[in-house]
């Protein structure tokens, strides 16, 4: 299971990376915005994408749309972990095809629940 973590703040990437490691996912890579993440996704055989929304150059919602528009990536499970908390935004993300949505600040348990749920659905 190879996971790409996308967030413009390195501390948030490290926190998510550590939480994922505790959940048994040790194969992770990091990117600091959508524009650096997309080429990594296109060439890196990732199984799962965890992305922030608010980032410079390419936002997480745009990254999500690019992923869904890419024939090779369109089935990639995407979990959004973000401070964006407007109802319209959550609806927007859902319509863009997000698989899970976690609002910051979040707990390790919430992250685990959402990841479990996503894989239950993907595998089920």
């Amino acid at each position, binding site marked *: 299971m190879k996971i790409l973590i996308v967030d413009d703040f*390195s501390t948030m990437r490290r926190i998510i990376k550590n939480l994922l490691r505790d959940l048994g996912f040790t194969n992770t890579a990091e990117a600091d915005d959508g524009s650096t993440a997309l080429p990594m996704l296109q060439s890196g055989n990732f199984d799962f994408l965890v992305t922030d929304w608010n980032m410079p150059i390419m936002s997480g919602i745009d990254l999500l749309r690019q992923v869904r528009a890419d024939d090779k990536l369109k089935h990639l499970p995407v979990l959004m972990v973000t401070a964006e908390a*407007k109802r319209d935004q959550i609806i*927007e993300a859902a319509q863009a095809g997000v698989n899970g949505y976690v609002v910051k600040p979040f707990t390790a348990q919430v992250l685990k629940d959402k990841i479990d749920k996503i894989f239950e659905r993907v595998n089920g």
Partner: protein
Amino acid sequence: MEHKNSTEADFASAVALHAPQLQLSLEQGDLQEVTRIVAQISQARESILYQEVGRLTRELHSAIVDFDIDPRNPHAKEMSQITDASERLQYVVKMTDQAANCAIDLVEASAPLVNYISYEAQSLMTEWQRFMRREMKADEFRMLAPRIEAFLGRSLHDSDQLSANLNEILMAQGFQDLTGQVIKRVMTLIADVESNLLKLVVMAGQVDRAVGIEHSIEDLRKKPAIENKSNAGEGPQIHADKLENVVTDQVDVDDLLSSLGF
């Protein structure tokens, strides 16, 4: 002229001062005198306005100059104070980043120590229980004893290390005090600048009224169309609990998504 009171009061008293004479001159048909008095009133008004603008400008300036947080910096006064404010906020970003990274470093350094203790304790527990049930042969116990000794020795050492790491994590939270102070100062500056800008806006309104300029409401409302920034995101919602179109927690998010069929 005395200017202890508000501009309008000053102006009113200047008018009141000249009014009887003006009326008298009007009644007498002395147009030259009327013109002279009107000019005097007008001059008084301008002078009061200039003084008010000057006073507000000085207040605004001093509000900005007052924003001098770091007396140790000899160049503080030469810098733009607003630039200084953003530098201070940059300092907050740097401090919080350092503290977060420091804490994560220590957590990452501590995790293997805890993992070892947990793993080895589990393994030794199984062996120890065999020994207690007298299921262990003498030479097996001879193998177990040095493992127990090594475990105890390493536990002692690692728990010291963990304790030191916890202490360092605690100390890393000291950023809160320093950044809190800086942020409070910047908030005070913003409040000062806002209140002075507000005064300037009110002042501008008074100047407009005094000189008879009228702005069309349509022009004032005609703001450049706000571009749709939703793609860029808005960052954390500060008053999530008071806003209707904003979720307050993960439960809200889950409810909303499940209402959408998720």
